[in-house]
């Protein structure tokens, strides 16, 4: 791509800089005005900023956003998973560990004895969800806040993945927010 040719005024540099400074100072005074009005309670602070005050205010995530996994359940509460290893095979990060066992129901071949996902390795690509033939694994919990004091907390086991509460904390992990 050829470098665009600058006109003489542009090459003088100062006029262009003044334009930039005018833009930023316009933002400054406009936002300062709205902040002042908001401090007096006359209007919402949203007019002065685009910041979302994160822990208190949360941004609505799109429905298709991939968040941490959960395992779906049959009507009796057992996992739908048949331990076919499709997800573990599809996983590029190699973070899914499945150990299969015989299912008591002869109509179903296998079920997972262990189903662990190491969230510290997961890249949130969603291949496991795509690969699953049974719709047994989904990434729709809306939970992204995976922070623990040690790595063990990030290894989610079957019981935890079956949990319906998106903000649950694994029993074996110490949550980061212990101070509060």
């Amino acid at each position, binding site marked *: 791509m050829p470098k665009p040719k600058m006109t003489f005024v542009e090459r003088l540099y*100062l006029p262009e*800089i003044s334009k*930039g*400074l005018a*833009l*930023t*100072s316009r*933002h*400054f005074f406009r*936002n*300062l005005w709205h*902040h002042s009005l908001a401090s007096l309670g006359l209007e919402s*602070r949203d007019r*002065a*900023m*685009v*910041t979302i*005050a994160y822990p208190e205010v949360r941004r609505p995530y799109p429905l298709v956003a991939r968040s941490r996994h959960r395992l779906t359940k049959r009507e009796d509460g057992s996992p739908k998973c048949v331990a076919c290893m499709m997800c573990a095979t599809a996983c590029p990060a190699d973070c899914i560990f499945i150990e299969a066992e015989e299912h008591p129901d002869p109509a179903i071949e296998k079920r997972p004895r262990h189903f662990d996902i190491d969230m510290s390795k997961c890249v949130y690509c969603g291949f496991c969800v795509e690969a699953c033939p049974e719709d047994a694994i989904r990434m729709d919990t809306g939970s992204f806040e995976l922070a623990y004091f040690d790595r063990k907390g990030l290894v989610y086991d079957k019981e935890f993945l079956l949990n319906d509460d998106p903000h649950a904390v694994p029993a074996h992990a110490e949550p980061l927010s212990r101070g509060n």
Partner: protein
Amino acid sequence: MHTALDSLNAAMSAHPLLVQALAAVAKTVFMMTVVMLIGGLILSWVERKQSAIMQDRIGANRAAILGVRAWGLFHNLADAAKGILKEDFIPPDANPFLHTLAPFLAVSTAVVAFAVLPFGGTVHLWGQSVDLTIAPLPIGILFVWAMMGMGVYGVVLAGYVSNNKFSLLGCLRATAQVISYEVATGLTVLGALLFYRSLDFRDMVAWQMGHNLGQVPFLGHLPDLGAVLAHIPAWGVFLQPLGFVLFFTATIVEMTRIPFDLPEGESEIIGYNIEYSGMKFMIFMMSEFVESLLFAWVIVLVFFGGWSLPGLHLGDGVAVLFGHALPYASGVALEAAAMALKIVFFLWFQMLVRWSLPRFRYDQIMHLGWKIMLPLALANLAVTGVLGVLAR
């Protein structure tokens, strides 16, 4: 009570040096408070908040004392506490004395330069005239340049004794940049000094207050404009617009702030202070803010008439504002407010520049310094000098 006051008055009148010594201590306390408060605390808050407001953000506001957040002002106190309580790490191969001396030199030379900056005229105490300048040196501005030159030693030491290649390269970059622009800083201000004929800041302010543009050679003789120009004060910025722009640019380079922050490069390039932690690192940061206050002050004194306010004249015990007589004290207060407002404006403007412009490349900085600013400053000086002689 009366007798105590009388004896105090008597003692003060009898020992003029005592008056001056007490005044010196008071001035020192005042100046240290101003520098530490603005350079140490307020400016880092301004940097956070002004950038946030310019960028439609809210800025740091989480630090709270008993639930009171005070617009994030407590973040500075938290920073100070953190700086004091952090580990003061000295690399094992570094010389501990020189490693500690570097931040001390960098900041204390910048602060000592404030000694020659006047914050007012003269007051009379017990028959003694006390200058509102810590050290009213006749070489004023040269002292500031000298201290700035000393400040480079802090940077050189920091990079050299840290035993780290990145800091060594950073200090080389910093030194080359700062000394290159020291020439430009010294030259650009000379055009204005041609008018003032003094290096003392108080003389410069007095000259700017005592003249108007109508009295300036050539400008005042313009047929129609001369009368209009007589109402405009002869501030340095009107006499030397090019000199002002060049000087302002050079000062930003001197304090190594964005867009000329190559020595340090907050996030991308590693600078001379990489092996510093805790309070020593914060002192390096602080010296940047102190310098920005210093240069805002110098710019106001040299180019914006110091404490002069158009239309306000302070005589012997009387103040006149646009023909109306004012109490003397309110005239003094107006002057102080004018000075403070001008400095605040330039601090704001420096922040505006710092948060608006992208960083220059190193060869661009050197190109700008040696091939653009130096010739322009020389030409500006030559033209001003020739016109000045022709007008005689």
